[in-house]
């Protein structure tokens, strides 16, 4: 699924390869020649980059049996050489005490000082060179996925021998998907060099394919000296493709908008509770988000070997941390300021400054790096021009999850009932025996906790640093005010629509102007509807 995931270990294939070669009964001289090739390559590999490139070229050209294995080792950065004698070793983990396998005779050595061994590093040229080479080899691979990847890699980049390889493999290619790709590859080839008839036929085959090389080949053809009728066909095919691309482009924008929106919702929804339900302006909200992000960081530090799980652990942890801090704030400061919203605003702003400086002093002003777990990285590829980024997808889902959870808490649990009671009529609720003090504290804790959870999500997208909070506080206020205070649904709708609006504007207005336009829009909107999209109506809201 994800295009750039490291492919599986090569060893089984290698073994199989050896088997085949043995059955073919390879002669001894041949093997001697191989060893000699390997020696040459090895000598080159420990030199500078361009010699290393030559080494790769050599292996590929001589079609050495271990080429594939060695290339993969290079790709995965597991090939090292010993500084003193330039011998090549395979090292899985370069730590003192770990073992290093000699590339040539496979004998094992244990590493005394890791400084003795130096990795055979690559640069981008070599990376491309190797992936090309592997692709050509990959054509013969067992795993159809791999074959598909290989062909895709070769789309529009065929040379004589790869063409011939394709031509005689395409007949007995079992998997349809791969076969189609092969057809495409060859068709592109025909498009470039072929007579009118083959070109026309090629266009037939290419029609409607979204693979970028196809489009490029067609555009190239239009510029070439092909016959008019061919060009006409090509133009038609091209139009068809562009039509599709435009359509998927719109889908993509929508997706981007939703994912940006869901981030806004996550950032804002905690505020919707503290601000909306309790009428408390919490300027420290952004910093509560920040605390959540830092919690994620700490958790990852605690369990460095389980990055994947760490996120899941971080969610409840972040909730607790932020919630506790929130409750502390409520008990320590805010409860003295109920009914004085503007003072609350100032006090909480002070708190936000303190929290910022606190993390600066504890974690240093530098940003902290939070790793993205594998299960969150990668793409869901719908087609070559439209793919969904996994991390964003998870965040959208996560956002909805949090939202539903909150709605349930507020609508179905006794706490929620009491919260709504207190928020509607404090005195009456107290009279009916609701301990409004604790309800306040818990509500504020809930809102803060949600902020913390949002922090976990944000840690996957942006900097984890002392300024994280500030960059989101204004946006989240906008979302809440726009959506209508005290209304979760409002927040959801507002967040998502603002996100989409932002993304729709961005292409023609540019990122900055888009943001400005959205802000101005909100300012004007508040003039028209001072209570937001979904205002609380009724006598409570009057006056």
């Amino acid at each position, binding site marked *: 699924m*994800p*295009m*750039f995931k490291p492919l599986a270990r090569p060893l089984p294939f290698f073994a199989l390869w050896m088997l085949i070669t043995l059955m073919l009964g390879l002669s001894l001289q041949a093997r001697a020649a191989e060893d000699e090739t390997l020696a040459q390559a090895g000598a080159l590999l420990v030199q500078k*980059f361009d010699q290393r490139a030559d080494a790769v070229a050599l292996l590929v050209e001589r079609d050495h049996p271990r080429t594939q294995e060695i290339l993969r080792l290079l790709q995965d*950065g597991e090939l090292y050489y010993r500084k003193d004698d330039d011998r090549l070793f395979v090292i899985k983990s370069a730590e003192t005490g770990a073992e290093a396998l000699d590339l040539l005779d496979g004998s094992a050595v244990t590493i005394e000082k890791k400084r003795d061994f130096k990795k055979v*590093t*690559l*640069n*981008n*040229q070599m*990376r*491309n060179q190797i*992936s090309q080479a592997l692709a050509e080899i990959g054509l013969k691979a067992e795993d159809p996925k791999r074959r598909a990847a290989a062909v895709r890699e070769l789309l*529009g980049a065929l040379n004589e021998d790869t063409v011939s390889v394709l031509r005689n493999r395409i007949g007995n290619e079992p998997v349809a998907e791969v076969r189609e790709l092969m057809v495409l590859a060859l068709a592109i080839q025909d498009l470039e060099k072929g007579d009118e008839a083959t070109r026309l036929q090629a266009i037939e085959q290419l029609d409607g394919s979204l693979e*970028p*090389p196809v*489009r*490029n080949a067609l*555009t*190239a053809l239009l510029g070439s000296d092909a016959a008019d009728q061919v060009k006409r066909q090509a133009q038609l095919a091209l139009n068809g493709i562009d039509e599709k691309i435009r359509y998927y482009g719109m889908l*993509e*924008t929508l997706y*981007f908008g939703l*994912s*940006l929106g869901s*981030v806004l919702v996550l950032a804002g929804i905690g505020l919707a509770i503290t601000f909306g339900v309790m009428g408390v302006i919490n300027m420290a909200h952004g910093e509560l988000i920040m605390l959540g992000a830092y919690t994620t960081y700490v958790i990852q530090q605690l369990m460095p070997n389980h990055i994947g799980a760490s996120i899941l652990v971080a969610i409840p942890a972040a909730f607790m941390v932020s919630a506790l801090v929130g409750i502390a704030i409520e008990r320590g400061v805010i409860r003295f300021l109920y009914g004085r919203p503007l003072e609350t605003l100032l006090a909480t702003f002070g708190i936000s400054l303190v929290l910022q400086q606190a993390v*600066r002093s504890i974690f240093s*002003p*530098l*940003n*902290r*790096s*939070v*790793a*993205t777990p594998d299960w969150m*990285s*990668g*793409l869901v590829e719908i087609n070559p*021009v439209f*793919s969904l*980024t*996994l*991390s*964003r997808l998870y965040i959208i889902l996560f956002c909805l999850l949090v939202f539903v959870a909150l709605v349930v808490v507020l609508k179905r649990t006794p706490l929620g009932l009491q919260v709504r009671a207190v928020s509607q009529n404090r005195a009456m609720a107290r009279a009916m025996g609701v301990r409004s003090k604790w309800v306040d504290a818990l509500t504020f804790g809930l809102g803060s906790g949600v902020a913390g959870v949002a922090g976990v999500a944000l840690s*996957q*997208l*942006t*900097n*984890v*640093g002392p*300024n994280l909070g500030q*960059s989101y506080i204004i946006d989240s206020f906008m979302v809440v005010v726009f959506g209508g205070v005290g209304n979760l649904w409002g927040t959801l709708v507002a967040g998502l629509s603002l996100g989409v609006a*932002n*993304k729709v504007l*961005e*292409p023609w207005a*540019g*990122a*900055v102007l888009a*943001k400005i336009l959205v802000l101005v829009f909100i300012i004007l909107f508040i003039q028209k509807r001072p209570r937001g999209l979904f205002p609380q109506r009724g006598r409570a809201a009057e006056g």
Partner: protein
Amino acid sequence: MRTKASKSKLLLGSVSTLALSVSMNVAMAAEDTIKVGILHSLSGTMAISETTLKDTMLMLIEEQNKKGGLLGKQLEPVVVDPASNWPLFAEKARELIEKDKVDAVFGCWTSVSRKSVLPVFEELDSLLFYPVQYEGEESSKNVFYTGAAPNQQAVPAVDYLMNDLGVERWVLAGTDYVYPRTTNKILEAYLKSKGVAAEDIMINYTPFGHSDWQSIVSDIKKFGSEGKKTAVVSTINGDANVPFYKELGAQGVSAGDIPVVAFSVGEEELSGIDTAPLVGHLAAWNYFMSVDADVNDGFIDSWHSYIKNEDRVTNDPMEAHYIGFNMWVEAVKKAGSTDPAAVQDAIVGVSVPNLTGGYSTMMPNHHITKPVLIGEIQDDGQFEVVWETSGTVAGDAWSDYLEGSKDIISDWRAPLSCGNYNTKTGKCSGQNF
């Protein structure tokens, strides 16, 4: 600080002026040391980058004092905190020069902070050593630019991409402020002069701290999928980088497909990023921590022992301060005095070792010569040098690729002694001293 104390009294009445000025001439007294001003933000948004430079300077001064100081006197650092607030930079600069009577100031990071202090240094005719790569288009009698000018970073990087990686399409992505704007204008002109077609150049600007890169990255992806080899030249600033690289990774753009060469991402910035998705992307600097040179190893060791933390990295602006400080020291020795005017004359032509094993020289335009290195990001947060200029490159204050400035030259030696002399009109403009 004493004057400040008096400021509070100002609330209580005019009494202040008395107390204040008494304190003033107490300050006059101490003259047995040479004072060096350090003007880096220790709080606010820029503290992230600048605090390190403050420590670097303190280390350098300490070492110099161990070597017996300068002209038989000890060096005394004077640290102030302009708090990432641009007007405050000017105020603190004035404080350093007028009140603390420092002989030279090392500081500033952002262009705007430099622009803000520039008039102060020219008015009071003092010296500023500015250690960060910048957009050029400036040459002041009183400022020494030890960071890279565009022709010492951007242009060579583009050459590398064009010649070694065969890049044909270019995305110039930057944060919307003067450094990226100018750099991109220069690059655009340069690329066109190399025959790159307009439709093969895509320019994009984003606000500071931009965090949602989805659309832009997908545009870059599309732009790069149209057959020609594409690269991104990134002048994206500080905080915006992390989400940018994360998004690149998320959308499966690998360094192999579309390499990104950055001018503002160094070891310090990488230490705050999960480098896994960045491996293979590039950065152009005049120094990398990974550079293999004895002088560099020595510097790193003394840095680690000074800061008492083996994990702290070194980066390019630190090297710039290292060079600048040593140049100043040499110039003072040569002039036999710390008098700014004398040092200004003496320092041109001074050359000192840089950390990449070569020498850097102060040019008459107050910029210096440096080698240019291209490094590939490795998964350990370090850079692997993949290319470097054969010799050193001299910093060019006025780009030859910009309409306004291609006729302007800078030479602070007599008889010209002008920072922006227009060879066409033969006029020396913009000097108000």
